[in-house]
């Protein structure tokens, strides 16, 4: 049904897909597995016509298939249910379902026919009782998910032949998932070809005929699910060659300072719900997160996308208001209800999205560097431009940031140099507890190593660092300890001697392997 031959896709700085060839039979249920960033999403985007491959060809149902816009894919009968839902919240269920082919009579919307068709589609996904005129924003997430699927398999002339499901159960409860699985079985009985992407290995084994594993943009293996098991799959996703490769490098830092109270301690802090956290049953109180971060220590936070890592950092920083629970800074309880409280306590956050949340892009490097340290740069509220420029260049020298001068706009800088400006901002502000969310994402190899060295030096000089990263080698290279999060909880903690990618992944997938115990913690 679907044949991929030598698909290659390059993004600036990364080879997202490297010669992927794959053949999927009609009516097959095919799983795609791989770590974050292994190329699953890139592959789906090529299939859906969102991106075009740099090399390679695709065939769909025997005919050449080269979608250049998503509509081409839809016309060819290939539909994708994306991880993030694409419904229009203010419109009705029926309008969402039939958005691409609203029935018209004399140019006007034919409401009666619209509702009729919508009802038929809803019945096909087991939502018989749902009023097609209800607005989508009043529905729960599980219903939205089913509506997305109904839309994708939809009737009419563009009936789907291939359906791609990207993490469809990420936001569902076990019961809702079970309903989805029933639907999938029914679609399979109708001969639908499906590609299923999930972190939940148990689902892959329960539902799929074959599984393909991607790693670093390459297809590692494709085999029937009957011929492998969870640990075999994890091994394939990791690749032996990678394991512990960088872990031995460096790490000559002095041990963390255990004589002082921890730089930061969390007791039962509850961040905003993580995307993959099991939704709360009324009356149930989750335990919250405990964490100790010492001066001179680098603690890593590992976990799958959506495990709640970013939410934890934002909770500590007060970015979404005060999080329930207790926080101690140098042994004293502190109340952090806004970022301004956190910075006053010497806590800084290098955000995941530096362009939107870290930098004021159209402004100069000097302005961005002093953004969190204006109290130091100014006297009685009056700026001192000379001091500001000097501070900028001093930090640039310390971090070897390549600037044409303090007046250079940060929008003109490379990713690595932009990230160094963000780091300079926090260093100039005198930050002692620095949290870093994906500090080297989208940064080339050279700058990456420089940032790693810099973080080492910061820890050696007594800074306390909390690092979130999806790259396990990076965490293993940097950290004294790694806390692994799974579905909003800390699933386990590994000391440096225990570091291995298998151990980390095993903890990260805990709560996913068996749906019944999902989210049950360590």
């Amino acid at each position, binding site marked *: 049904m679907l044949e991929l031959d030598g698909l290659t896709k390059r993004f600036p700085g990364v080879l997202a897909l490297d010669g992927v060839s794959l053949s999927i039979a009609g009516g097959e249920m095919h799983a795609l597995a791989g770590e974050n960033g292994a190329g699953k999403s890139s592959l789906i985007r090529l299939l859906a016509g969102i991106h075009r491959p740099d090399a390679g060809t695709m065939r769909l149902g025997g005919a050449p298939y080269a979608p250049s816009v998503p509509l081409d894919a839809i016309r060819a009968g290939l539909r994708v249910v994306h991880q993030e839902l694409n419904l229009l919240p203010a419109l009705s269920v029926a309008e969402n379902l039939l958005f691409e082919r609203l029935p018209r009579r004399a140019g006007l919307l034919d409401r009666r026919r619209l509702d009729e068709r919508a009802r038929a589609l809803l019945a096909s996904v087991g939502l018989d009782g749902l009023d097609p005129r209800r607005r989508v924003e009043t529905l729960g997430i599980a219903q939205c998910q089913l509506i997305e699927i109904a839309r994708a398999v939809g009737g009419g002339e563009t009936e789907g032949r291939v359906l791609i499901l990207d993490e469809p159960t990420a936001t569902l409860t076990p019961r809702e998932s079970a309903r989805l699985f029933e639907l999938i079985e029914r679609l399979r009985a109708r001969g639908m070809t499906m590609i299923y992407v999930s972190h939940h290995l148990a689902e892959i084994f329960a539902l799929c005929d074959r599984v393909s594993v991607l790693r670093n943009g390459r297809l590692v293996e494709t085999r029937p699910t009957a011929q492998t098991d969870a640990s075999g799959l994890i091994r394939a996703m990791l690749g032996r060659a990678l394991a512990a490769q960088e872990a031995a490098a460096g790490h000559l830092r002095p041990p963390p300072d255990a004589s002082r109270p921890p730089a930061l301690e969390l007791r039962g802090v509850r961040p905003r719900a993580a995307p993959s956290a099991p939704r709360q049953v009324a009356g149930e109180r989750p335990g919250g997160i405990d964490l100790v971060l010492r001066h001179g220590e680098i603690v890593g936070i590992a976990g799958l996308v959506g495990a709640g890592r970013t939410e934890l950092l934002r909770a500590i920083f007060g*970015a979404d208001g005060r999080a329930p629970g207790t926080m101690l800074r140098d042994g004293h309880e502190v109340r952090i209800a806004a*970022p301004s409280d956190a910075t006053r306590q010497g806590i800084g956050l290098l*955000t995941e999205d530096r362009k939107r949340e870290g930098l*004021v892009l159209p*402004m100069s490097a000097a302005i961005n560097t002093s*953004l*969190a340290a204006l109290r130091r740069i100014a006297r009685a*509220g009056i*700026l001192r431009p000379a001091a500001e420029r000097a501070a900028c260049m001093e930090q640039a020298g310390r971090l070897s940031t390549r600037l044409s001068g303090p007046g250079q706009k940060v929008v003109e800088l490379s990713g690595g140099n932009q990230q160094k400006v963000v780091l300079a901002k926090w260093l100039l502000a005198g930050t002692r507890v620095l949290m870093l969310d994906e500090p080297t994402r989208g940064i080339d190899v050279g700058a990456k190593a420089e940032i790693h060295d810099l973080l080492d030096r910061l820890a050696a000089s007594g800074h306390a660092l909390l690092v979130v990263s999806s790259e396990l080698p990076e965490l293993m290279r940097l950290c004294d300890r790694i806390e692994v999060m799974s579905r909003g909880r800390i699933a386990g903690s590994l000391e440096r001697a225990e570091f291995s990618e298998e151990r980390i992944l095993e903890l990260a997938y805990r709560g996913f392997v068996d749906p019944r115990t999902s989210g049950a913690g360590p």
Partner: protein
Amino acid sequence: MTDPLARRLRAVVREAGIGVALLLVVAFFALFAPGFLGETNLSNILTQVTINLILATGMTFAILIGGIDLSVGAVMALCAVVGGTVMQAPFLPPWAAVCAGIAASLAVGMVAGALNGAISALWGIPSFIVTLGMLNVARGSALEVTDARSIYDFPDAFLAFGSAHLFGLPLMFLLALGLLAFGWVVLTRTVFGRMIYAIGNNEEAVRLSGHRTLRVRVAAFTITGLCVGIAAMVYVTRLSIANPILGVGFELNAIAAVIIGGTSLSGGRGSLFGTLLGAIVIGVLGNGLVLMGMSDFSRQIVTGAVIILAVVLDSYRARLSAAG
């Protein structure tokens, strides 16, 4: 745009664009409008520009931080009638009445501005909507306070300001100029001014750098309101009347001056110097077209066209700087 010289040239054109436009307009009227360059006429222009200049100075703060204030005309009427009413208090000596009246006008303006800023910042509502509501609230309040009647008979000492001259220039224009210069210093030399520009460009990044952006936003709109209160008093001293329907449409002239002056409607980029030139361009256009005998209606058409042209140029400029 890798060549630094080319870049600098383009930056100069960007900054100077409005200045060049002003020179062209002045040259045109000097040639074709009879009496345009006469001393009385130039003084007239400055007088006519004064109120818009004060309003536009305040408007620049609101627009730079990424907002807008549509309520300035209506709030100005409320300031004028409240200030005027206080000024007529029978139990106060004239000088005290004048001071109390001015203080009342400034206070009303600042409260309205602070409300605009706080409501839009606290609930994340676009200031466009909030100030549109405030426009009606203020206009209605002004009519209530006065029972829709005008207020006359102010102390002579107060009215004398309106026609006073210093160094041959209208005193009120010098006041507006001083206010603008002070605002320029605040915007370019203080932490507060830096916050306004930075928030106008990327509020979330500023907040996540540990700043209380809400306070800055409220303060910026309060400054807009303060300028409205000042403009109201200038209006009363010049025209010797405070009525509840004054200032209709003044917000649009103020916004036009700011935009023609090169400040980006999306915030974060622009300067009060540009606003000064923008306000003068609008004033000169209006004056010169009258001298050329153009009707009220045709003048509106021309002024409107100029505003559209300025915004088109602004978007072109934005694309230029995005490319650079």
